């Protein structure tokens, strides 16, 4: 008898109605200036290997093809096309579905894979087809393609894992150490390499590959934040002279301690900050960046960024309830000729990133509610993706394990060769070849697996003594951190694998997504296994926490690493870094001239940074869980921008407000002032919507260039000092943060291009009465409009300058307003007293834009007869901090002024006519304002 031979089948599935993906390819090509005929077709391909009878193929066909929607064929397509399929080992949820279907139908198949097929019009130039595929359709980081038909690459079977290598490190000089450093892409400092060498010298043995990789991950900038923990020698700055600066991380931590807010439960330890929400409920909050991965594989990078930050919240035993995203891109209209070598086009990055965020948030079932999108040429090669998550939990003591004897338990997805060395990759500077070398660092997420992890872990808090997520550095980082002090002994052989052939260090370092590590007392293991089994989560007991302080890693019993956790966590030398402090302009105020203020209002409204983000917001499910009380879009036509968003369970009295502050353009002029301004913006976002300014917690996220350049380090120092001063001023403590440094690109000319100083502040605040939230849409005509705060001539970094170009003497960036904190408290009292009909903070574009947005929101006009400054351009377009416009019913004005201690300027009234009328400015029709706002930004 002949042994059965695996037979390859391929099912090509086409949509009966036009496939929207084909139209997207044609539109995308047109956007890039590539001349492609419209006759493009897209089909899906399912590859199945196995001996299947015709009736068995029919059964699969019936499941995989819906006759009302699709046509499927097992024949090779007649028309020429380009076929795309994922590299072996990249998450392929379609293949998973095929295997599941076969199992349900009791069919035996050997393997499954999926792909896509793009068919171009006849006589399309192959060079053009290739360009369309490379620019728009596929990404060589995760996929490969071929003209004609393609076969999925099977995962190489039978590859023997290499045995662990011993690296002779003892006695090596700096040059030899550097060779190892580069060979293994460790990104360690010379001093760190020497300390490792000396440590092993003392031990009297050489280092294993698993050990050196573990140290490199743990000591990476990404995991250990060496810059933020460095002592800084600062020179220059407004005060001049030399001074020694405390580590930035310590400054932020001490700032929080000194504020001593009663609602802070945990700050700057563990995966996320924790604050009290109501009696009996706590909130966990965290924001992360995923910049480098998003640059090379936008979908996967953003996708796993969202997945990672959700795990951070799960990793402090809270149920995730909402996601935020702040995205920075290059200009979408960038001509292809101006695109730096090796970079993806900003349009492609934007599409991929938004899809990646949407895919993860929508599928895991969390509302993506708050965010911002910024455009600047400096983000072309280094897009930034900040993702945040908040969660809630019944109040309980934080887990204080692991304890000696607890089991080391890994939950979730299997481990593959994905995401190896992501932590160290984040230290790399991008250049034209980054995409090629970094491929292994990028993955596609599987939100369903993470959803199941949430289902398994929420409610199981009594079954474990410690929990953390597997993020950068994989198990090496997760187990390594948990083992600090207590020690652990684990066997990599017990870690579930996606496929054979993985080296020990690869299993240890893999950043395969959707995994959590928990420390489980042996008596609770059975109960946790039952929970996991119920929801379909894989669980593996890989070892124990020992109590001897050593991190021992085995591979099938053989010890491949034995590291003192004290050396692992405290052995890294503290960095000492020089900083040249910025010397911002602080006294010279210069105004601007604007030829046609009305036209400028319309142009500003259409500026991509200000224009409506509806096209993005609507791709995110912001309604799931039914708790979104104030949405990102509000008003009569649901197209006005909100300040903060508010979440409150149906029926709950209290709510959670989320506000975001970010303004890198201020940072280019005055980093310290920027820090004040963005903390202030985040504060105003939440206060404007009805949150209590005395119940605000902050997250800090820094994305900067290379801090080894003293001027960059100086910017960071100035920014952190500004953050701390602002936090103290508002008594709003930082509870968690993250820095992403080295966001730089080396161009073909050898010049370095860094991102502008990008500080993102997220404010999470308590809303005492979720039924009394206030939004920016004007409520009714006849109401009085009042301005809070001071208006000064502060144009450096303004959007007016982005529009008109910056003059040679830009003057000052917006300065801190010392009266702001007390003003917000009074405003909150007024909101609580029901005196405020609508309220909007002033940000990009100043007063004119804030008023225009309020008019759009309410589809009502405004007659403004008093301006807050003698200089018209200052009054309309300056971006001074600390300001809000408030709408108050006429009968409530006296009460409002009393509550506000008369600190409000009456500037005009809401009017029935559909116009925004500003002194000395042509009246603006609300319809035109709405049109400019809704059709700007270049995103349909």
């Amino acid at each position, binding site marked *: 008898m002949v042994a059965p031979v695996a037979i390859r089948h391929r099912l090509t599935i086409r949509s009966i109605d036009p496939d929207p993906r084909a139209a997207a390819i044609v539109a995308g090509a047109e956007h890039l200036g590539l001349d492609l005929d419209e006759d493009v077709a897209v089909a899906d391909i399912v590859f199945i290997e196995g001996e299947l009878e015709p009736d068995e193929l029919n059964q699969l066909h019936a499941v995989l093809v819906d006759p009302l929607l699709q046509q499927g064929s097992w024949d090779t397509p007649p028309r020429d096309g380009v076929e795309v399929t994922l590299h072996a080992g990249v998450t392929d949820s379609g293949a998973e579905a095929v295997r599941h279907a076969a199992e349900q*139908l009791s069919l035996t198949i050997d393997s499954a894979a999926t792909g896509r097929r793009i068919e171009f019009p006849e006589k399309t130039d192959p060079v053009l087809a290739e360009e369309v595929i490379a620019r728009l359709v596929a990404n060589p980081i995760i996929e490969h393609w071929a003209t004609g038909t393609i076969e999925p690459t099977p995962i190489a079977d039978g590859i023997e894992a290499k045995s662990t290598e011993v690296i002779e490190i003892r006695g090596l000089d700096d040059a030899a150490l550097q060779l190892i450093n580069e060979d293994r892409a460790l990104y360690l400092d010379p001093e760190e390499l020497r300390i490792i060498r000396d440590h092993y010298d003392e031990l009297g043995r050489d280092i294993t590959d698993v050990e050196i990789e573990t140290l490199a991950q743990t000591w990476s900038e990404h995991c250990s934040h060496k810059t933020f923990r460095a002592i800084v020698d600062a020179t220059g700055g407004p005060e001049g002279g030399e001074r020694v600066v405390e580590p930035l991380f310590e400054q932020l931590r001490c700032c929080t301690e000194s504020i001593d807010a009663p609602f802070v439960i945990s700050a700057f330890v563990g995966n996320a900050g924790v604050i009290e929400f109501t009696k009996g409920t706590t909130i966990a909050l965290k924001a992360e960046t995923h910049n480098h991965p998003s640059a090379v594989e936008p979908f996967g990078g953003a996708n796993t960024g969202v997945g990672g930050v959700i795990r951070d919240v799960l990793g402090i035993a809270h149920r995730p309830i909402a996601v935020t995203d702040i995205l920075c891109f290059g200009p979408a209209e960038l001509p292809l000729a101006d695109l730096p070598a090796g970079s993806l086009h900003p349009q492609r990055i934007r599409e991929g990133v938004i899809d990646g965020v949407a895919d993860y948030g929508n599928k895991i079932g969390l509302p993506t509610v708050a965010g911002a999108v910024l455009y600047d040429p400096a983000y072309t090669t280094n897009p930034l993706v900040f993702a945040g998550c908040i969660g809630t939990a019944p109040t309980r003591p934080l887990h204080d394990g692991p304890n000696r004897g607890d089991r080391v338990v890994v939950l979730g997805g299997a481990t593959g060769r994905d995401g190896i060395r992501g932590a160290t990759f984040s230290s790399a500077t991008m250049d034209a070849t980054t995409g090629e070398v970094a491929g292994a660092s990028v993955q596609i997420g599987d939100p369903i697996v993470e959803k199941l992890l949430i289902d398994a872990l929420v409610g199981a808090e009594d079954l474990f003594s410690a929990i953390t997520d597997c993020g950068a550095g994989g198990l090496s980082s997760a187990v390594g951190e948990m083992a600090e002090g207590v020690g652990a002994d684990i066997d990599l052989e017990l870690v579930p694998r996606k496929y054979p052939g993985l080296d020990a260090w690869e299993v240890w370092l893999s950043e395969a997504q959707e995994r959590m590590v928990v420390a489980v007392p042996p008596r609770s293991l059975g109960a946790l296994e039952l929970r996991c089994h119920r929801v379909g989560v894989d669980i593996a007991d890989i070892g124990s926490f020992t109590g001897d302080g050593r991190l021992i890693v085995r591979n099938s019993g053989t010890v491949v690493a034995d590291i003192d956790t004290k050396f692992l966590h405290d052995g890294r030398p503290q960095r000492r870094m020089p900083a040249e402090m910025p010397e911002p302009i602080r006294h010279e105020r210069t105004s601007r001239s604007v030829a046609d203020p009305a036209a400028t209002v319309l142009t500003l409204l259409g500026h991509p940074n200000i224009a409506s983000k509806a096209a993005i917001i609507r791709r995110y499910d912001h309604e799931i869980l039914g708790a979104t009380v104030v949405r990102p879009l509000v008003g009569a036509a649901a197209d006005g921008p909100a300040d903060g968003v508010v979440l409150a369970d149906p029926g709950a009295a209290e709510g959670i407000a989320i506000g975001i502050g970010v303004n890198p353009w201020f940072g280019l002029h005055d980093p310290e002032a920027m820090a004040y301004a963005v903390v202030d913006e985040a504060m105003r976002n939440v206060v404007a919507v009805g949150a209590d300014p005395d119940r605000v917690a902050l997250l800090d996220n820094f994305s900067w260039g290379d801090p080894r350049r003293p001027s960059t380090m100086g910017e960071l120092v100035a920014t952190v000092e500004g953050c701390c001063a602002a936090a103290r001023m508002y008594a709003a403590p930082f509870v968690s943060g993250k820095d992403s440094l080295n966001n730089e690109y080396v161009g073909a000319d050898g010049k370095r291009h860094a991102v502008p100083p990008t500080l993102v502040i997220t404010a999470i605040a308590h809303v005492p009465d979720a039924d009394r939230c206030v939004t920016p849409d004007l409520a009714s005509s006849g109401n009085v409009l009042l301005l809070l705060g001071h208006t000064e001539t502060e144009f450096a970094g303004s959007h007016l300058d982005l529009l008109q170009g910056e003059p040679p003497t830009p003057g000052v960036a917006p300065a801190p307003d010392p009266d702001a904190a007390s003003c917000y408290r009074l405003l909150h009292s007024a909101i609580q007293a029901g005196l405020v009909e609508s309220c909007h903070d002033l940000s990009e574009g100043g007063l004119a834009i804030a008023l225009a947005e309020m008019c759009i929101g309410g589809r009502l006009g405004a007659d403004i007869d008093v301006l807050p400054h003698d200089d018209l351009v200052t009054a309309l377009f300056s971006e001074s901090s600390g300001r809000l416009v408030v709408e108050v019913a006429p009968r409530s004005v006296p009460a409002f002024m009393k509550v506000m201690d008369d600190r409000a300027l009456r500037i005009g009234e809401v009017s029935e006519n559909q116009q925004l009328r500003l002194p000395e400015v042509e009246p603006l029709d609300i319809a035109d304002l709405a049109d400019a706002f809704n059709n700007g930004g270049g995103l349909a």
Partner: protein
Amino acid sequence: MSQVPAIVIAGPGTNRDRDVQRALELAGAAVRVVLANELVERPALLDEARLAVVAGGFSYADSLGAGRMLALDLVVGLGDGLRRFVEAGRPVIGICNGFQVLTRTRLLPGALGHNAQGRFDCRWVVLDPVPNSVSIWTKGIADPVHCPIAHGEGRYVHPDPESLAAAGQVALRYRSTNPNGSVADIAGVCDQTGVVLGLMPHPENNIVARQHPRAARGGGGEQHLGLRLFENGIRHAKEL
């Protein structure tokens, strides 16, 4: 019977189960959320219920077509269990992914394809109950129902929408905005008996007036709540 026993069926990736549980509870049901594989192991859970919901989400990540794998699980695992449930007159509602599942199990006619505009879309819509519909879920509801959609594969496809409407099987239509290119603006359809309803929008996300995006501007209100559908289903189950 004070509270109607209701079952919410979830698969791996179902994610609006908690939302619909809350809606059912508010409407007066005692709710049990059950995973499809649990239900296959213990089919009695279905027998104990008087009303069933297939909840929204992304079962099996929507891979290779929304709802297909969960539908397969239910058909293979329960055999004609769901059909018998329906034949006993017990109301069933499939929302979003649940609608997609029910069309694949053939409990509901038609199919749901990718949105015509090619993208996932989340926005509030207004649904007009169709007066001649045989659906027990929309019976007696005269006011439009307001609720959000959140889907990428919600374009309702049917070869003969006129006959479907004539048979009273079109239960809900999108008013003014057809967000996904559904044929004849169809947002919800029922089976011939009227006990099974499938719809893409999420009535479970408009159960209290505060959830309406224009609540502060006088929008929405009690008469437009999605809750009304669940109240109808529960009333019907109670009378069985």
